């Protein structure tokens, strides 16, 4: 982390000085991500990388051995612990390109601090290597975005989510109480929700009127589906994901 001052200076240039009032500078995000990837590339010992925006909101990357093993951004933490149900690298990529990127997009100022992790890094957290992460981020920015799995990426926005294949739950993520609610829905109402769309890839979002609370989202693509509870603030991101990640050939 010897280059922390250099990185902070770069972040200030990318965000603080160039941002007009009430303007979200999304273009600067690419530069910040490039700087972060360079920092991850140089990080061998375990480190908490804490990014703080102008409102004091924080996102956390836990990095060790040039790998991201844990990520926390608005929308909840994503762990790199390996399990039988899901690919930890895919989870971390979805969180990085979803809520974490949104956090960077919406920030007008960003600073970074690095410190030893408060907790010992679990050796089973295989996480995601910087090379894999960089490749996935590059893919999102090119035509290969169509190949990104919208179900996985959508689950990255979830406070709670289920992954469904053939109508069966194959993975669960997020707040256990909310997951239980979704399990109740998966048995009945979710089928009806899926029938609203005419088949093929689709994204359906339901919620209360206005911008508060939670929304219920069903994303279907390539024979799989995600049933998601997400903050209403994530709606724009989920819609953008569905518009860009669902290949037109899969639409009907």
């Amino acid at each position: 982390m010897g280059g922390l001052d250099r990185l902070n200076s770069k972040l200030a240039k990318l965000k603080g000085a160039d941002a007009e009032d009430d303007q979200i500078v999304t273009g600067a995000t690419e530069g910040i991500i490039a700087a972060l990837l360079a920092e991850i590339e140089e990080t061998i010992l375990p480190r908490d990388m804490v990014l703080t925006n102008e409102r004091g909101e924080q996102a956390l990357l836990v990095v060790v051995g040039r790998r991201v093993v844990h990520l926390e951004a608005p929308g909840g933490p994503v762990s790199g612990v390996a399990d039988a149900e899901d690919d930890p690298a895919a989870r971390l990529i979805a969180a990085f390109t979803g809520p974490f990127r949104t956090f960077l997009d919406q920030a007008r100022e960003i600073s970074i601090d690095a410190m030893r992790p408060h907790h010992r890094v679990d050796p089973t957290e295989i996480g995601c290597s910087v090379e894999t992460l960089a490749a996935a981020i590059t893919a999102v920015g090119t035509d290969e975005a169509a190949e990104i799995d919208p179900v996985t990426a959508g689950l990255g926005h979830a406070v709670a989510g289920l992954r469904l294949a053939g109508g069966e739950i194959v993975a669960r993520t997020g707040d256990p109480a909310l997951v239980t609610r979704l399990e109740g829905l998966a048995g009945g109402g979710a089928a009806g929700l899926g029938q609203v769309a005419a088949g093929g890839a689709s994204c359906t979002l339901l919620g209360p009127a206005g911008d508060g609370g939670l929304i219920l989202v069903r994303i279907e693509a390539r024979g799989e589906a995600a049933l998601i509870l997400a903050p209403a603030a994530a709606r724009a991101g989920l819609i953008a994901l569905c518009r860009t990640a669902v290949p037109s050939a899969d639409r009907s």
Partner: protein
Amino acid sequence: MHLPVEGGRISTRLRAMALSRRIQSLRGSIPGCRSLVYADLSARLVLCSDSDLPRPPQEALDALCLRAVRLMTGPVAEAARMALAADLPPGEAVVVQGGGIEVFLRAPTASDEALCAVLDPAADPEVALALLRGGIDAILPGVTEHAATADRGQ
């Protein structure tokens, strides 16, 4: 001003014309909005619509209305209400599919009525929803008020 209203038939026609103009105006204010439908969810009926096509196929408008009914009433809406732990069924819905986007907004003062919009693939549904939220009060209270007046007069 006194309108030349003679009986329920003429007043109903004037009501429909006024509603039609309000729907037309609202659709025109929404960037990329191809069609805007005002639907009665309980009757599964398109009450008024405006479109960029001279005569949009009635089947397409009916199908849009039916999707609103499926999303915002019945088992799907009840399951969604429970999943969201809400007191009321969903008030808004967005469907992204097939290169098109549809947005639905339940009338806050008349839960059986809703606006349904079909948007261009490039349109921003967040902007459309915000404009529908802002515009629905200007459209529907007048309808309800006029309808009540007409009902009392008949």
